[in-house]
């Protein structure tokens, strides 16, 4: 499949006399193929929004290459802007205009037919409230309006930053269905979100960013498989056999963690080998369950942002690719 979005070695450095230098993007790479729903994940401050802003010409990059729909950006951005719909961060609109006025003015600026305004209002469920001023809207309604503004162009590529933010559960489900429908109609969707369960449900592929670098990418299934630890939980017929079983499995090179009524095994390639090993010693398994990983646990592992009891993780304390968790502001944070 052709790439709709390609980023190679993107760099953005913020310099401040008082706070020193901070690498917001440190050689970031990304690729999104046509027709996919692509999840773009990363902890707070990891560079997601900077990437999207840079891609859309709002921020000037310090290095790297970006291609949108086959055109190098930012130079060719005027040529492709009409095919890229985007919302970046929280929805922002002039509060005293109605939703219809807001969309109508955008449609005018972008030479989009006025009839498209009604279509997108219908699509995001704001048809009956379109005559109200935006300042009276809830966060979720503003979010719907933001999505409507991005869809107004009927874009080939839709970039949405936290589109489910502020939506009620019904709205989240509607948004999920909308994303899938858009992808089925041929639109490519890049979705930045912290609701990882949603990403896992909606997305075909993901890119995970941490401290300005890509730490994982690919189809969701592959990313999950790559970071599956091969964990297996087993129970035996007799709890008294657990110590013997621990010895047998340890001698076979399997990492074992004992619990009062079961064992947790790590690094198991083939669960069948466990049953064979134990059966040879007359130890009979009553339960063997491979532990599946989800995107949230992979994300927390890759970005090293899992909460630790008694510790207060700071924003920049996350995983740098090829390195370890950063202890503080040094190594990428302000003053580094």
């Amino acid at each position, binding site marked *: 499949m052709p790439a709709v979005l390609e980023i190679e070695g993107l760099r953005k450095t913020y310099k401040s006399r008082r706070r020193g230098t901070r690498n917001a993007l440190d050689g970031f790479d990304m690729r999104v193929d046509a027709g996919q729903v692509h999840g773009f994940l990363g902890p707070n401050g990891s560079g997601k929004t900077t990437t999207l*802003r840079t891609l*859309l*010409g*709002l*921020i*000037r990059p310090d290095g790297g290459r970006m291609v949108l729909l086959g055109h190098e950006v*930012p130079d060719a*951005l*005027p040529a492709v*802007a*009409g095919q*890229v719909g*985007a919302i*970046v961060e929280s*929805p*922002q*609109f*002039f*509060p*005293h*205009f109605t939703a219809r*006025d807001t969309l109508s*003015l*955008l449609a*005018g*600026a*972008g*030479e989009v037919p006025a009839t498209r305004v009604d279509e997108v209002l219908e699509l995001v469920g704001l048809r009956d409230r379109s005559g109200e001023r935006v300042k009276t809207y809830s966060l979720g309604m503003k979010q719907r309006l933001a999505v409507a*503004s991005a869809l107004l*162009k009927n874009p080939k590529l839709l970039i949405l930053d936290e589109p489910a933010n502020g939506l009620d559960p019904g709205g989240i489900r509607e948004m999920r269905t909308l994303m899938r429908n858009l992808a089925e109609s041929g639109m490519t969707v890049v979705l930045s979100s912290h609701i990882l369960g949603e990403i896992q449900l909606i997305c075909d592929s993901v890119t995970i960013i941490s401290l300005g670098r890509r730490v994982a990418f690919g189809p969701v299934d592959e990313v999950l498989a790559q970071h599956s630890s091969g964990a297996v939980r087993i129970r035996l017929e007799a709890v008294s056999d657990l110590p013997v079983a621990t010895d047998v499995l340890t001698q076979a090179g399997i990492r074992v963690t004992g619990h009062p009524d079961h064992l947790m095994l790590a690094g198991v390639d083939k669960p069948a080998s466990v049953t064979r090993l134990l059966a040879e010693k007359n130890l009979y398994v009553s339960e063997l369950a491979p532990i599946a990983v989800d995107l949230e646990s992979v994300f927390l592992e890759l970005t090293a942002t899992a909460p630790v009891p008694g510790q207060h993780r700071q924003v920049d304390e996350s995983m740098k690719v090829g390195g370890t968790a950063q202890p503080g502001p040094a190594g990428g944070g302000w003053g580094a």
Partner: protein
Amino acid sequence: MSLFRTELRRLSKRRFTRYMTLLGLVVLAAVVVGVFLTNQKIDAGQLARAERQADQQYQEQVRWSEQERAACEQAKAAGTASDGRYPDDCSMIAPPPRDQIEAKWFLPSTFNFKETFDETLIPFAAILALVGFVIGASFVGAEWSTGGMMNLLLWRPKRLTVLLTKLAALLTGILAVTLPAAVLWFAGFWAVATFRGSTEKMTSGVWQSFVLTGVRGVALVVVFTTIGFALASLGRHTAMALGGVVAVMVVGQFGLGILLDMAGVRFAEAWLLPTYALAWMTKKITLEDWNACNATYYGECKPATMDITWQQSSVLLSVGVVVILGAALWAMRRRDIS
């Protein structure tokens, strides 16, 4: 062109634009109505009555000076004239010449179009320049602070084109209000002069002079609107322009004025911006330095003078617009949008 039309629509849709324009026009209308109500047409009877009152005034002055001269001579004869109440030479106490007491002092106020109309163009330009400045600042400042500018740039990524199109739409909107308002201003004061004064002695030269003053007034409105727009864009907030003006006027003008006065600087007004705005409208302002008193042959004091001309003002206004708008365009092109 679609962007220009859209921005013009955006400008006219904003409530702030509508209210400020309405407020400005109401103030202008109030000025015309106020002048109409406080002036009268002078007829021959009123003129004759004023002449009589001037005569009476002169006669009173003659009587009073004769009384005082007599009192002076009496005091001198009694030897009590040394208290400083009277001059040494009592003949110095004399009434003013008859022509010094003018009949027009006793006439009600009347609006003479030829003599007074060009003065009214100064408040006209000042009020609309203020309205233009505030609307210009708000138009782009609110776009920046509410995220509208970022949204627009996602549609139209050519930053300078977007900013300059917004400015063009703004100036078109301001001119669409200012030019008809100027025509109504001329018409309004012509009506005032017709019904409450005089429209005599209007030659083509006078009309030409008024039109040129009006054109300079419109130019002043355009300049201030552009500066308000550029300052707000530079600071990416309406408050930047309004705060900047307050800072310049309070610190830069009142403060500087006091400082220059304390330092005894000659022609201190030459350092103050309103002087140049006034010189632009009146073509020339003559500043006077009363500390440098040049005695004439007749003993009167003639202060040293300095002329500020509309040409000097035009240089200052042009440099101001180029620098501030240039900075706004540079920032628009170079600065990240976050």
